[in-house]
């Protein structure tokens, strides 16, 4: 009935005696293992129907005490807040601080210097970071675990227009200033039945370095390599456009302006009008963001391309491969990075319990409900649980 549970039980049966022989004294580790398994078990029952309350044995969680210090990506900040309150509702002795102001770079830098127990980042570790992670964490290095899935929304403000269809070529041309008016034939062709004014297009982009920008530029260069000749970058590569600080800056500027168009993490766009984006590079299917759409896109396009660290789950997203019906063309993925071997066993126990909770269907449902994210597919969650087991 639940293959993952069996898998976990199987693993547990194998690992448990080993643990006893190797780390006879470390009862705590076994406790955590049991806990992780329990969460995995409980998660199995929930994915489709309304998520049942977590059946996690309260004893295990409530026996945890300590503080997790973390930070990084602001994209997953709201999800982290939701996870933290859901987790600490049971693990009352645990305090989790997630510093969203640090950004992905700050998170990884602080984690590499040992300041953080885990870091949230919008891009998996780069080769040089993998190397320095080996100095920080020991030979095992650090591992990337996907935790947060969302999408980049294209928002616009055009009086009288509430629905807008765009394809990747048009988006690339608009954001590289090749299309400058709303009634450009390319846009009109995609939007039959919509009266587009002769208004000037004002693209609104991010002025600060951001994972959202990296995602968006990757999407453009993956799908339109000939049109989009700018580099893939965390910093917006085109000069001469209205650049605003933070996703909130983009959203509020788009809302305040006229004829504006911008991109932002869909969870932060609020009531702004979102464009529907063409699925693939041809055809007439236009998809608006939906959580299931993002999950479908992840299934379509993401492949695990691990770094040298064992258990690493870095993903490569090939945007051009997103073709399933209903899949949203611009998904956005965010990771948590942890050491494969913690310096401090107590912190390892806390981090494993916390991220173990995130990587369950329950955890994903909490984020979906409270942060507007899309749940990660079950397969990757199972992989993550396997990886977490390697963490000491």
């Amino acid at each position, binding site marked *: 009935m639940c293959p993952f549970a069996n898998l976990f039980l199987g693993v547990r049966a194998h690992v448990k005696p080993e643990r006893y022989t190797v780390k006879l004294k470390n009862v705590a580790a076994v406790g955590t293992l049991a806990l992780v398994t329990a969460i995995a078990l409980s998660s199995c029952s929930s994915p489709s129907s309304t*998520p049942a*309350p*977590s059946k996690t044995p309260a004893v295990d969680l409530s026996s945890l005490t300590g*503080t997790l*210090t973390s*930070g990084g990506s*602001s994209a997953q*900040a*709201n999800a982290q*807040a*939701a996870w*933290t*309150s*859901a987790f600490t*509702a049971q693990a009352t002795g645990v*305090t989790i*601080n*997630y*510093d*969203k*102001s*640090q950004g992905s770079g700050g998170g990884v830098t*602080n984690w590499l*210097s*040992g*300041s953080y127990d885990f870091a949230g980042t919008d891009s998996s570790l780069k080769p040089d970071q993998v190397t320095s992670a080996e100095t920080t964490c020991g030979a095992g290095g650090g591992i990337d675990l996907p935790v947060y899935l969302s999408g980049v929304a294209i928002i616009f403000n055009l009086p009288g227009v509430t629905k807008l269809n765009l394809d990747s070529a048009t988006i690339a041309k608009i954001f590289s200033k090749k299309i400058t008016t709303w009634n450009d034939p390319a846009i009109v062709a995609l939007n039959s039945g919509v009266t587009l004014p002769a208004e000037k297009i004002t693209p609104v982009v991010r002025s600060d370095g951001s994972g959202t920008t990296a995602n968006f530029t990757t999407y453009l260069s993956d799908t339109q390599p000939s049109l989009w000749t700018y580099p893939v970058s965390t910093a917006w590569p085109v000069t001469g456009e209205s650049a605003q*600080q*933070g996703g*909130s*800056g983009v*959203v509020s500027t788009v809302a305040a302006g006229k004829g504006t168009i911008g991109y932002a993490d869909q*969870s*932060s766009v*609020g009531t702004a009008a979102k464009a529907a984006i063409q699925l693939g590079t041809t055809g007439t299917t236009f998809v608006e963001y939906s959580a299931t759409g993002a999950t479908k896109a992840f299934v379509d396009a993401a492949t695990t391309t691990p770094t040298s660290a064992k258990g690493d789950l870095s993903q490569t997203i090939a945007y051009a491969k997103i073709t399933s019906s209903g899949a949203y063309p611009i998904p956005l993925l965010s990771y948590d990075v942890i050491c494969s071997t913690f310096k401090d066993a107590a912190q390892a126990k806390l981090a494993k319990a916390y991220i173990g909770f995130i990587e369950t269907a*329950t955890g994903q*449902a*909490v984020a979906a*409900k*409270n*942060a*507007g994210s899309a749940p990660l597919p079950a397969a990757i969650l199972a992989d993550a649980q396997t990886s977490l087991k390697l963490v000491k």
Partner: protein
Amino acid sequence: MTAPSSTRSSVPRGPIVNSLKSGQLPRFIEGITLGVVLLVSAGVFALIGFSIVGWLVVSAIVYLLAIGIMSSLVENRRKATDRVIRGLVTVAFLLALIPLVSTLLTVIIRGIGVVNWQFITTTTSHVFNPTTLTVTTTTGALQAIVGTLIITGIAALISIPIGILTAIYLVEYALPTQWMARTVTFLVDVMTGIPSIVAGLFAFSLFSLLFGPKAFSGFSAAVALSVLMIPIVVRSSEEMLKLVSMELREASYALGVSKFLTITKVVLPTAIAGLITGVMLAIARVVGETAPIFMAASFTDNFNANPFNGPMQTLPVMAYTGYKFPGNDIQASIDSAWGAALLLIILVVILNLIARIVARVFAPKGLR
């Protein structure tokens, strides 16, 4: 030009004698002209569509022209210039009031709906409902208020003694020609130019060097703020100590009072009002810092009153994160940002008022 002699030589060139004979505008002409101009331009703007800004700008220009022309016709060019400059200076002042009033009004209007007793006395709390999986967030500012007071308090405790003692050294002990005095004066000026984010990085690096990587603490943020605050305290205190009359010191020395007692019993009490004002301005300046707090104290929504362990939140950080990283309920986050901004301004005003009162209490009688 400064010496009285040069003043004397340059003034009589003009037609001074004539000015006594020339006509004079009636005494209240300025007020009357202003009123007439305001009314007339209001009438004109009522016809073409009213705009407060346009009305005020046009009125100001028309008034300056009118008073200048009238005065140069009836009086003379010198008096006309004088009246126009008087108008210009007043306009400059009113111009400066606009941003002040506008800022305060914006913050108060946006923040007043959020700030209430509950906002001030509770910590931001998240309640998780395990059945529906929803997290209900109630925003509170207690953790930020406490963090602000602790971090700024420690920064003040570090900066005020160092700052005032340095000022005493510069004014009372060192000769301005001495290398150390010159160096310190110069370095203090340079210190005012340290970008605040650099101060935060410096403090965090220093503390991770000393106490290991997990050095996030309110104390290290306070050190970062001190780096920013010390030069402001030194500069203002130095000026205030210099304003203390040399005769007072000399009188004290003449009575055989030691230097230490002269400084503590004569110089400092005389300058206390100015010193406190300067210190308060310095506090007001650093209490609104955001970047160094991020760098050195990280960020948290949790209550933490221990400055030596763990991240802390402050009001400016709360305002900034509320705006830049809104939660799921975007409007609520932005509201809480304005609430934090309003609390911050209230805090600064309270500090200023306390400073004024303290200054008045401690100032020796008869000096102010």
